Structures are given as C-alpha cells and as structure tokens.
C-alpha cells in the first residue's frame, strides 16, 4: 500500500504541471489560436520563476510553500508577457502560428542560457532547494485512504492545479466570457457579427495559455525534477499538446489524460519499486521511453471523434466567408 501511495504522489507531481499547461493550450485553441509555443513559454516561466525561488530561499524565515507560490506567480506573469509575442504575431500580424510558435520555442532556451551565463553566476544551471513537500495537512490527512493519497506528502501546487481546473471548467462553460471564447474558436465570423472583438478574445486566450504554461513550467521544475533548472523542460510542453489532443479538448478528460501521462512518466522513475517490472530485466532506457511511446499508442487508439475548435489555427480574415 505504501508503494501505491508513493506512486500516486509521484504521479501527481507530473500530472499537475501537465494538466495546467494543457488547460492553457485548451483556452488558447478554444479562442482560435494554436499555441505550439507552450514548451518555450514553460522554459521562460520556469527560468525566471525558479530564479526568484532560489533568491527567496536565501531567507530562511519564508515557508517553502509560500516561496513556491511566489515562484509560480512570477512564472505565470513571465509566461503571460512572453506569450504576448505569439499573440501579437498571430492576431495582429497575421503570421503563421506554427512558425511564430517555433520561434518562441527556439528563443526561450537560448535566451535563458544566455542570461544565466552572462548575468547570473556564469553557469547555465540555476540551483534551488527542492523542499516544497508538505508532509501532511492537519485533520484532512486523517481521512482513511483519501487522506493518504491527497493530503500527505503533497505540494501546494497540487491544490493550485485543482483550483485552475475548476476555474477553467466554470469560466468556459458557465460565463459570458467563456461563451465568447468558444465562439471565437468555432465560428469567428458569427462571433464578429455578434459584436465580439475577435482580437481581444484571442489575446485573452493566448495570454491565459501563456500564464498557465509559465506556472506549469515552474511547478514541473520545482516539484517533478531534481534541484536545478537547466534551460529545458524535456519536451513536456509538447506532451501537454498531446494531453490536450488525447483529452479531446475537454477539461475533465484532460485531467484523466494528464493523470495517465503522469503515471507513465513516473513508471520510468519508480519501476524498480514494482517487483513485477523490476524482474523483467529490461534496460532502463526502455522505461524512460514509456511516456513518449504511450503517447503514440494512445493517439493511435483514439484517432476518432474530434471535439477540436473548428477555426483553431486559422488566421481570422474578415472578408473570408
């Protein structure tokens, strides 16, 4: 049972950032802009967020969870600002969204290494103290089973992730602005005719996705990796795109999809704890491959019934009917 709890807690540490980033991608696509730049935005958010965390940790009086929250907020802000470049290109400049996104992906790691090496200490790694784990939450941790899974050895970011999930569900499906976002992704011409500003809504969508991706980047590095940031998020931005597709553009299914990918990616780290897997004697590299192989297999199996926004990825042209 302890191994089960351990794997559940490990899984959550990957699930939460993946889910937040995928939800960001969801909002952006719902508004009609494909955001392939999630990877780069995560790197940018993680770079500044983790740097701020490493600075704040110099003060021992701050509680680790507070430091993590501040880092997440900074990462989100940076991600939002960085994504403005993508919004500017794809909304105002009518640029190809793939190329603009690729440029953001290329820029982020180069810029992070450049700034880190030029101004911060001369090395590209940013070290921090990964001490954000909350051993248990009073009272709630006493609930049988659920307390062990959700309220012991957890991170504050876990609850941030759940809050964002609920927020996205509520805003997209229960508010006027959510209806407008969806309208812009499904039928921008009708939305335009109804007096909605396509440009404003798409800016909102892209910047929200940038904020979420920035937050996700910080959370991923702070909770699911070792204790340094090395200008990469190991393709998790692209995995988040796969989660979004696997989740069929629905928040609830995105939660399940990211849970699945979280489990797959932690299998590679924890396979030695599971006697059955450990006895197979497969090389370590095979387990490391699993999240990426699983992505392909799952995409092959679920290649029907799309719920994708119809106008996503297309430049809005007023004259086109």
């Amino acid at each position, binding site marked *: 049972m302890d191994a089960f709890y351990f794997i559940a807690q490990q899984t959550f540490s990957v699930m939460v950032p993946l889910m937040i980033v995928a939800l960001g991608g969801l909002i952006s696509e719902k508004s009609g802009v494909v955001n392939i730049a999630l990877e780069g935005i995560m790197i940018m958010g993680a770079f500044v967020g983790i740097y701020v965390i490493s600075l704040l940790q110099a003060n021992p009086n701050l509680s680790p969870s507070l430091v993590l929250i501040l880092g997440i907020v900074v990462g989100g802000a940076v991600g939002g600002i960085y994504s403005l470049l993508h919004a500017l290109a794809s909304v105002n400049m009518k640029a190809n969204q793939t190329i603009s996104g690729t440029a953001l992906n290329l820029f982020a790691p180069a810029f992070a290494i450049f700034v880190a090496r030029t101004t911060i200490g001369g090395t590209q790694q940013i070290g921090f103290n990964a001490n954000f784990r909350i051993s248990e939450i009073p009272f709630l941790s006493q609930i049988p089973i659920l307390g062990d899974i959700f309220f012991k050895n957890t991170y504050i970011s876990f609850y941030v992730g759940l809050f964002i999930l609920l927020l996205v569900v509520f805003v997209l499906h229960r508010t006027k602005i959510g209806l407008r976002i969806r309208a812009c992704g499904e039928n921008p011409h009708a939305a335009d005719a109804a007096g909605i500003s396509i440009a404003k809504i798409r800016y909102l969508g892209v910047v929200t996705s940038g904020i979420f991706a920035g937050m996700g980047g910080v959370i991923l590095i702070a909770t699911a990796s070792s204790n340094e940031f090395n200008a990469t998020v190991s393709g998790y931005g*692209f995995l988040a795109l796969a989660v979004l597709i696997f989740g069929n553009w629905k928040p609830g299914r995105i939660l399940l999809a990211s849970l699945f990918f979280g489990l797959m990616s932690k299998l590679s780290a924890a396979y030695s704890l599971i006697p059955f897997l450990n006895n197979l004697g497969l090389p370590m*590299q095979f387990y490391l491959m699993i999240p990426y192989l699983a992505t392909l297999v799952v995409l092959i199996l679920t290649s029907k019934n799309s719920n*994708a926004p119809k106008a996503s990825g297309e430049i809005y042209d007023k004259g086109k009917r």
Partner: protein
Amino acid sequence: MKPTNTTGTSWMGHLNRWTESLGRWITHGSTTRKILSSVLSIVLGLLFGFITMLIVNPQEAVEAMRYLLFGGFLPNNLFNFLFYSIVLAAPIILTGLSVGFAFRTGLFNIGASGQALIGGFVAICVGLLVPMPAPWHFIVAALSGMVAGAIWGGIVGLLKAYFNINEVVSSIMLNYIAGYLISYLVTTPGVFDMNRNWTKTLPDSATTPTLGLNTLWPGSRFDISIFIAIIVAIVIWFVLQKTTLGFQLKAVGFNKDASRASGIQYRRNVIISMIIAGALAGLAGSMIYLSPRNVRMRTTFLILSEGFTGISVALLGMSHPIGIVFSGLFISFLTRNGSLISLTTIAPEITDTVIAIIIYFSALSALMMDVLGRMLARIKSKRLQSASQPPHQEVPPTTGGEQ
C-alpha cells in the same frame, strides 16, 4: 480512390489544417520580396541581439558584435572560422532541406533530430561492422543512414496518413524515443569502445572522402560533405520543380481537398513526403557521424541540435532548396563566429537568441512583405517621376503618401 477519414470531422483535422496552411504560406510572394524579407529579418534579428548585449554588457557589446559579424574575416581566423563554417554547414543544410521539403508538402517535420540520430547510428554501424573497399564503404554507410532516417520519418507519415496523428506531436515523441533507443543501442558490442565510453574509431574507408581538400592549408578539415549537400539541394529543387511527383506532393501541401478531388492520392503522398524528409535528415546524420573529424556517439541521451537548426535554416531559406543552401551557410557562419564571443564575458548563446529572433521576424514576413512591397512601389514611382517627369500622377497616391 478509397474514402478517407482525414477531413474536417475527424479528430485531428484542425491540428493538421494549420500545418497545411504552411504550404500555402511558404509558396506565396515573389522571389525578390522573399529574399528582401529574409534579409530584413536578419538585419532586425542582429539589431535586437546587439541591443540585448548593450543592455547586459554595454562595455563589450560592440566587440562581441564585431566578432559575430566579422570574426571569421580576420586574417588569423580566415581558415578556422570562415572556411570551417562552410564545412560545418553541410549537416544543417541537409536537415534544413528535410524540414523545408516537408514544409513545401504541407508538413512540419520537427523530428529531423531523431531521424538524423537514427541515420547516424546506422551509418556508424555499417562503417564499423561491414568491411568494404574504400569508395564503396562510405557510399554504402551514408546510404544506409539515409534509409534508416527514411524509415524513421516514414513512421510519422504512416501515423499521419492512416491515424491522422499530427506530425508535430508524433515526430517530437519519436525524437525522444530515438534518443533513448540510441543511448541503449550504442553499447552494441563491436560498435562501442568500453574503455573510452564512446563509439570506436571508424576505418578510413568509411569516413567522408576528402579528395585532398584536407591538405589545402595546414589544419584544413574540409571534406566533400558540403558538395554532397549542394548536389542534394539541386536534386530536391529538380524533384519539386520539374517532376510530376514533386507537383503532386506540393499540391497536397497547398490544398489537400482540391488535390484529392483531382485524383492525387493523399495518403500515399503524405507517406512519400515524410520518407523523403526522413531520408534527407538521415543523410545529415551520416554526414555528422561519418566525418573524418571523428565525431563519436555516447551513451548520454541526445536530441541532435542540427535537427532544430534545420527548422531555422528552412524558414530563413523560405523552404526553397537553393535558399536553404545560402541560409545554411549563413547560420553556420553566424554560429561559428558566435563562438568567438566567448573571448568576451558575454555568453556565446546570444547567437542562438539572434537566430530565434530572425525566425520570429520571418514569421511576420507576410506583413513585412506588404511593407516592403509598398516601399518598392514608392521607390519605383519616384524613379519614374524623376526619369520622365510625367504630366500626371502615374502611380495611385496611396502607394506614396501613407506611412
């Protein structure tokens, strides 16, 4: 023709639509305007890089910029930097051709890294395990790498054609799978040198021929890979421009539904496109690892940077094979010169930053081409006015007056 499920209703239809729009985007606009907009992107990218350096380190920014632009032209560096950047351009021209060819056929091959890695590994294996006489050994090894890359790229094509899986997602996944696969396979007995912890030294018969180019000047590391890259670029240009296959592949990239309506087989063409793109990347891998400079493979997980540089090369070269040769040479030159920046306290990664900014501006090229077009029209109208002093305005006033 078989009915397919790849149109609007299917689940990845929309994701695929935006990569298809690439084909249209890349092919519109006249050549002059394309070249001008690439040059403008380069100038703006360099300008922004200079400003960034001025902000972080105003004392050394000018010196770093001088290295970046002219470092290779300094008499002492002529051989080591200017000429060496030509040698190093071959792999990124080939990955650039891979990405650019896919662009032209409406696909975004972000997986050139994995294809090149697989290709490079197979080339090394043939080089080490299959003894052969001199000219053939290299040819067979390089071609095997090409075939391996073609298979790795073909998987992406199959997944797209039959399961409608977006090639961006699948090829990224395959990059990671290739990285881990190779880090395991590299320890194969006969290939791996246990003592040095890297692959064994290739026999001379398997390395890229130098044809005496390595004796042109002391320390020359020239081999024929750059000529191979240029010949391949010409072949790709010919295939795209002069053959029925090329026309069909481009037609699918330009408008999938219209080409299907005219009897072009969509699935077959997607797979062929990705096989060719993969083959080009695989050949890039062969050129990297068969180089007489003894580039080794190690057990560390690797995503070859040449694959991603290839994206920059293709975009800057506007996906035209000849443009890609020039943009590959330029980016190689910039990268090689950029390494001189480490003589200052500014980090040489500024070069990658500059390249990324150049790509961002080339994404804005639709708008930049508009601006350029207006500027050209204004210059032309002025020239007309000064040449003939026409009695009445020949050019509509909007081209001259605005902005």
